[in-house]
């Protein structure tokens, strides 16, 4: 007992003497700490704003259930489209050298820099007012004020995330794996499918998670293209917006809580996969 106390006293003394050595360290660390406290407090504030009972009730309400379902469906579909388009594009830009490569890389990043509202307006103009968009609508593919528009908006805004993660993943895989596979009877496509893509598994997972998570949270662009019709194009963020504007606080908080949980879980999974992405 006595020795433990002495030990505790000594280690405390050690800590204090170390701290005295570096006030700079303390100051910088304080900033980090304050920031972290601020973030955690905000999240806790949202989740504890109503009683657990009211929260549960809201979560089980038809409107929130609809929003959850619509968000999940649209975000999964838009993520799948992001994968389908980004895999070949990211591969090409990781592997090949061609004139205009830098410009192409920059253009593919543009949606990342664009405010989502502007992206939404641009999509609305292309698919709502041009003969191209009208032709599609006549053929039955309507984007304006439909869930399809939500998918389109999520795809356009989040594609760069998938693209960038995959591009750096492919860049990290030595092309000689494919060369060897080709000398062992594989076509270029076969080598990609059987060797490079499985090796890119972790990057693909990380990219999918972040794309999906951002899809769930997509608001501005989706609002422009699909509007905010209750029980029609009402995703979780749209639901949050609608219920906030008409004072239905418990419903708004229910949406917010789900979005927080999804974000935290996604962040955790993303860190895990991108952390292990270079194990091979």
């Amino acid at each position, binding site marked *: 007992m006595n020795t433990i106390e002495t030990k505790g006293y000594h280690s405390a003394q050690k800590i204090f003497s170390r701290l005295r050595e570096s006030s700079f360290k303390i100051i910088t660390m304080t900033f980090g700490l304050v920031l972290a406290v601020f973030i955690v407090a905000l999240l806790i504030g949202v989740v504890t704003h109503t009683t657990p009972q009211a929260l549960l009730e809201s979560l089980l309400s038809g409107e929130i259930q609809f929003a959850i379902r619509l968000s999940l469906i649209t975000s999964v579909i838009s993520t799948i489209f992001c994968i389908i388009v980004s895999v070949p594009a990211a591969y090409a830009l990781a592997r090949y050298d061609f004139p205009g490569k830098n410009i192409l890389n920059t253009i593919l990043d543009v949606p990342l820099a664009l405010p989502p509202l502007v992206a939404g307006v641009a999509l609305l103009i292309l698919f709502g007012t041009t003969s191209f968009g009208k032709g599609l609508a006549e053929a039955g593919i309507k984007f304006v004020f439909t869930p399809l528009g939500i998918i389109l908006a999520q795809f356009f805004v989040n594609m760069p995330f998938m693209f960038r993660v995959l591009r750096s993943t492919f860049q990290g895989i030595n092309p000689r794996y494919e060369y060897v596979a080709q*000398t062992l*009877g594989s076509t*270029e496509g076969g080598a990609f499918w059987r*060797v490079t893509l499985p090796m890119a*598994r972790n990057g693909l997972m990380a990219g999918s998670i972040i794309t999906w998570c951002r899809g769930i949270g997509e608001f501005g662009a989706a609002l422009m293209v699909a509007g905010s019709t209750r029980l029609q194009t009402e995703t979780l963020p749209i639901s949050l917006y609608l219920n906030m504007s008409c004072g239905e606080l418990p419903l708004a908080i229910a949406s917010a809580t789900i979005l927080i949980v999804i974000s935290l879980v996604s962040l955790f999974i993303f860190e895990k996969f991108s952390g292990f992405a270079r194990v091979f």
Partner: protein
Amino acid sequence: MVRVENISKNLGEFFLKDVSLEVADGEYFMILGPTGAGKTILLETIAGIYSPDKGKAYLNDRDITRLPPRKRNIGMVYQDYMLFPHLTVEQNIKYGLRSRKLSKQEVSQRVDELANLLGVAHLLHRHPGTLSGGEQQRIAIARALIMEPEVLLLDEPLSALDSETRAKLRKELRRIHALTSTTMIHVTHSFDEAFLLGSRMAIMNHGEIVQVGEPSEVFRKPNCKFAAEFLGVTNVFRGESRIDNGMAYITINGLRLASTDNREGQVYVSIRPEDILVSLMPLESSARNSFQGEVQDISDAGIIVRITVDIGVPFVAAITRHSFLDMGLQQRMDVFLTFKAVDVHVF
């Protein structure tokens, strides 16, 4: 037979310039050159990874210049093994057989055969990431050989290994070559490998082949300044070694050298020029090798002067400018060369 004719390829940093080469069936051919000489692109162009900007490649008189790698039946082994990390050792070895439409039984029979040949049968269910460099390289060789390639290309296959494993695997390569008589083209920057494995060798520099010939010939008679400087080892001779009382005695053209490297039979011997003492009178020392000869050539390179002395075979010795002036050496003078048995490198 592999033949490349006037192949040029520009990949920016690395390039090939008008390379022509012919490797006979069953030959073990070495390509030696410094980093950046274009050795790897040459192999990759032969394998079909790159199509050349200019020139032609033939395999057994069949034009393969535009053929994709999978249709060439040329195997490739890299320095860093390039085993597929998501597959087990067994799946790695049988990767190529998928394109061969064999029955399951034939596949597993072939895998066992190759795994036994390379001594990796006990590793079949492991993943490559958990294996040592030597084990990984054996698997990479097995994976290439299972295709029964007409030519096996080896890109510095031993460079990433520790010296003990390297020596073991070098013997293995020789054994596999004798057993399968596959044509091998092996790129290296190690003189020892070139000597011990190659029946012929080429020296590459700046994307060009500067010399082709038998290793001993190329080492003895470098045809240009680059080859001479790159090979560096000036005193290389072929001789017969006998061991007597714990000491090796190598007879070269009538000359008898003593060495502490105990190796018998047909060997190569090298002595570094700076390990040779030059004197006007016989030296009283414990060094076992002392010979008299005539100075044939003097090349003055500043602080160091290299002199060539004929003691039955031409030996090059490097001495300081100071002792060169001290002795007042001139052509045709008789001098004594003395070197220790421990400095006679036998391989």
